[in-house]
């Protein structure tokens, strides 16, 4: 069954790839059917593990490497089961949504195949019980993401973004790989359950734990777009919007959270790693929320918001708040997927991603408006939507730690940052919502190629999307609404998070409402213009995203480009002449010999005489 979840989408991918170009119907069908089957299997497994702490395993099968063997095996527990359900469900919705969104796209079969492959890879990451197998899924996700971002490879930003995303995540993955080495050698196994057992049994020293977890963190930071490898995610937005929903919001970027959660027993062994994680989370949380506040691209706002929300989860994990992190992961998966898909619907309608060219779409897109409002509200933390409660769980963990936990200092830090972040989140959500749906309609469908993901010229008058696209929106809106009921149930999915932390909840609610009110006020005061104007000069800094890319360019890219040129120059100007130098040397020696053999008999005789005399002298001396 577990294997089926992984294999079914692969079959779908193969079918779509091979037959998709022949018959138009096959690819969507293959994608939807296999993903649906996969979801079905995931649900069966998920319900099997509902509230049940026991894990089921498959394998392990041993691969010898000459050293510590690799034990290939699958293992499903509650965490993986819930992740499976999330991943396959979002994948299914995205598949359905894409049928309409990408209708008529000649690259549709490839697209479906890659989405299927991605689903399989994500499932593999979640159910794998071996670090190397996990890495396989992890990187296959990365490469699927790379290909999908560059779906519109005629567009410069798509190509740029794909390369950036792939290279940055892979940079982190090298650290990840080394982390696996360290942890595997320390624990004597690469099996995840084995590593956890070893960690709990205390057979991993804190030094080993620190090094390995920090190295693993490199991969996590890369995959989940946390500081300092955060900048690829917004640039990945030129990819098709459903992809952004699936890969860059709900699942792949959350895999980092999943991994840290899974290996939390090892992380807790290392204070340093936990502190670093807190630091990263706090910086990312606030920084990216600020950038979301000033971004002029709807998808970019959502991307920064994703980065920020992921940081919440890491913040919870850094305080050992396992349950809160997972809750927030699941709820974020739902509402962020909803937001992206709704944004796709908006973009589909107006043909641009620029906030400055939207506005007043409430009437034209009623269903999109409704569902997206629910999504924004959930993001902003408006009760009783699910986002409020899951964020509260995170803040609650921080509150507990700050008040009477062992990580008091970091608890306070996270708490303050989290509250500030909540306000910022509410502000940028409101801003985006206002700019998209309210106020007058600005701009036109001009310059569709300007970052718009599919570059299609759309009719001047925006219209509601077809039901194949709206259906997923509605379906995703449901968990946002009723999810709170599930979250509030104690022991949901066996996750023991306290339901509500009243003081923190009240403060955060107050901050959120205040921020919403302030944003709305600024918007109203500016005459339905962008409230970010109120930020003044700071807006430029934020819109420039703290000039991080320029810094990377100057510190990393330029030197490596320079060294590459140096090597190339070396190849052509040192090695080549080195070869030709040998050539010249032989030429000169040949010329010397030619001089010696210039036909002059007396020179020959002299050579012979001198040679004989020299021999005699040498031998006389030698003796």
């Amino acid at each position, binding site marked *: 069954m577990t294997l089926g979840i992984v294999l079914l989408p692969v079959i779908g991918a193969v079918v779509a790839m091979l037959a998709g170009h022949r018959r138009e119907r096959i690819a969507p069908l293959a994608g939807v059917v296999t993903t649906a089957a996969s979801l079905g299997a995931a649900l069966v497994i998920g319900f099997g593990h509902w509230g049940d702490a026991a894990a089921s395993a498959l394998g392990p099968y041993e*691969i*010898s*490497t*000459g050293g510590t063997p690799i034990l290939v095996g699958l293992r499903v527990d509650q965490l993986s089961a819930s992740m499976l359900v999330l991943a396959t469900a979002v994948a299914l919705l995205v598949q359905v949504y894409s049928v309409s969104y990408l209708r008529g796209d000649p690259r549709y079969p490839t697209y479906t195949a890659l989405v299927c492959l991605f689903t399989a890879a994500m499932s593999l990451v979640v159910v794998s019980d071996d670090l190397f197998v996990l890495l396989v899924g992890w990187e296959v996700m990365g490469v699927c993401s790379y290909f999908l971002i560059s779906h519109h*490879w*005629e567009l410069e930003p798509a190509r740029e973004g794909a390369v950036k995303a792939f290279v940055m995540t*892979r940079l982190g993955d*090298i650290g990840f790989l080394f982390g696996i*080495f*360290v942890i595997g050698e320390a624990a004597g196994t690469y099996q995840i359950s084995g590593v956890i057992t070893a960690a709990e049994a205390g057979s991993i020293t804190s030094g080993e734990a620190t090094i390995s977890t920090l190295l693993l963190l490199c991969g996590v930071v890369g995959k989940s777009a946390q500081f300092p490898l955060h900048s690829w995610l917004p640039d990945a937005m030129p990819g098709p919007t459903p992809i952004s929903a699936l890969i860059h919001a709900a699942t792949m970027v959350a895999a980092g959270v999943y991994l840290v959660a899974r290996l939390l027993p090892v992380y807790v062994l290392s204070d340093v790693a936990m502190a670093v994680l807190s630091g990263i989370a706090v910086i990312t949380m606030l920084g990216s929320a600020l950038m979301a506040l000033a971004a002029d691209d709807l998808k970019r706002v959502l991307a920064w918001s994703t980065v920020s929300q992921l940081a919440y989860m890491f913040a919870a994990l850094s305080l050992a708040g396992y349950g809160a992190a997972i809750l927030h992961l699941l709820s974020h998966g739902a509402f962020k997927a909803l937001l992206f898909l709704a944004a796709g619907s908006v973009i589909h309608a107006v043909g641009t991603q620029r906030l400055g060219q939207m506005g007043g779409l409430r009437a034209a897109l009623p269903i999109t408006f409704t569902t997206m409002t629910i999504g924004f509200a959930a993001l902003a933390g408006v009760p009783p939507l699910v986002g409020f409660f899951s964020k509260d769980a995170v803040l609650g963990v921080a509150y507990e730690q700050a008040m009477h936990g062992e990580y008091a200092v970091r608890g306070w830090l996270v708490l303050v940052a989290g509250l500030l972040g909540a306000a910022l989140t509410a502000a940028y959500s409101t801003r985006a919502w206002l700019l998209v749906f309210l106020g007058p309609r600005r701009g036109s469908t001009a310059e569709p190629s300007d970052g718009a993901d599919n570059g299609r010229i759309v009719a001047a008058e925006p219209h509601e999307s077809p039901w194949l696209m709206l259906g997923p929106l509605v379906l995703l809106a449901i968990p946002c609404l009723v999810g709170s009921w599930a979250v509030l149930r104690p022991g949901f999915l066996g996750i023991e998070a306290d339901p509500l932390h009243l003081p923190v909840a009240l403060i955060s609610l107050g901050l959120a409402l205040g921020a919403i009110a302030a944003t709305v006020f600024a918007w109203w005061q500016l005459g339905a213009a962008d409230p970010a104007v109120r930020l003044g000069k700071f807006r430029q800094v934020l819109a420039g995203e703290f000039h991080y890319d320029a810094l990377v360019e100057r510190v990393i890219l330029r030197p490596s480009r320079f060294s590459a040129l140096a090597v190339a120059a070396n190849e052509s100007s040192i090695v080549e002449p080195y070869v030709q130098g040998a050539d010249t040397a032989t030429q000169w020696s040949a010329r010397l010999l030619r001089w010696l053999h210039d036909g002059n008999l007396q020179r020959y005789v002299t050579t012979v005489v001198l040679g004989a005399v020299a021999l005699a002298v040498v031998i006389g001396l030698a003796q």
Partner: protein
Amino acid sequence: MISASSFGGLEFLVAGPAVGAALLPLLRDSRRVTQAAIGLASAVLAVSIWMWVDVVSADGAYVWQSNASWIAALDVHWRLGVDDLSAPLVVLTALLTWCCLVALLKRAPDCGGTSALVGLILVIEAGSIGTFVALDLVLFFVLFEVVLIPMWFVIAAWGDPHDEPGRRRAASRFLVVTVTGSALMLVAFLLLRSELGTFDLAALTERARVIESDRQILIAVLLMVGFGAKIPMWPLHFWLPDAHSKAPTVGSVLLAGVLLKLGTYGLLRFWYDVVPVGALEVAPYLGALGVVGIVYGALACLAQPDLKRLIAYSSVGHMGFVALAISTMTPQGLAAANFANVAHGVITALLFFVVGAVKDRVGDSGFGVIGRGLYARSPHLAAVLAVAAVASLGLPGLAGFWGEMLTMLAAYSPHPDLPQTTYLVFMVLAGLGVVLTTVYFVVAVRKVCQGVPASDAVTDVEADEWVAWLPLVALTVLLGLAPMVMLWSADVVAALPVTP
């Protein structure tokens, strides 16, 4: 089960292609020659797979052994045998030869004389397989050299049709560097002989430990330089890019897929089995050169304006990984080197096939000439190129990953007598190389496959090309998903005593 050694299975693998090379061109019609050669290559492939099955069940011992005196006065014998180290390479050679011949069936180089080219390819197959299965040092050396002249011809006569002096220079450079290396290797072999009095590899393995360590170091150094020229190890790599960029497609495929492996195979065989003590002293230097090769090759690729040269330089990097793996002197390193060898053979061969196809279609392999948007102009071709590139950059789940991963793992815990910190640095630098490899491959894909299609459509992959390429694609995926296909022997190999 019938014992294949009783009817000379290995003799068939070596002599079959050689005899075929001598007789087939008599058929006159070059198409018929190629067809017959494909038949022969299929038989060789089948026998080699049968051989592998036998090797798998043999647990590390030499199987299909045979022995006949050749030059009595020099104590040289036709000693053949195959074990888990050589078996995969034999199968790889047989497979790549088959693919090359299939590729030649319809699209031979313009220069004509396809029959002769087919004959030369068969000679290369015979020589390479012979080198892998030879258990006599002089025989090894002779067969090692057998490959050279045919390859030289392939490059010099069928290479880049636009640049005759260039291809000849490239071919000669290849030959001269390799011959220098192999002559040094011969010196090492003869030193072994003078120490131990035999050319028999199996006997040498048993007796090697009596050689004093100074001598072992000398032999190990000679072997390192000798095989290093072939691998090619970093400062000796300069012949490779030229040879590749001037060679015809089949030449590049065989050069990268088979000939480079002769070097790494030799180093593995002799360092681990025969002079482990000396090798331990020299290993850090090999590791350092390997790592320099990795980073240097990757940097050279970054600024490379020609796709074929880029892949050639990427070979320098990949072979640097193999060198690093060998230099760890652990069973894991051995397994890693062996895996990386085969993986590189498969993937780079595929890459060269694809780039060769592109070059044949547009006339050159420079980025500027190929133009952009190959995804649109020739979707399947571009897709195969992208897959091969992704495999080559070491994506987990494809063949390239396990070799590199195991190499770095081996570098993380090298032989206890080796400097641990140094190897840690090697590992980190190798990781840096992996990142750089990613960069140049995605940049190359971006330049070639993506972008607004610049010029006309390019003929897409045709049926015969699919036949030649699909085995490689399949093997890339298979090795990536089921590395145990190659790694089953790792534990057997682990039984080898590396420490004296």
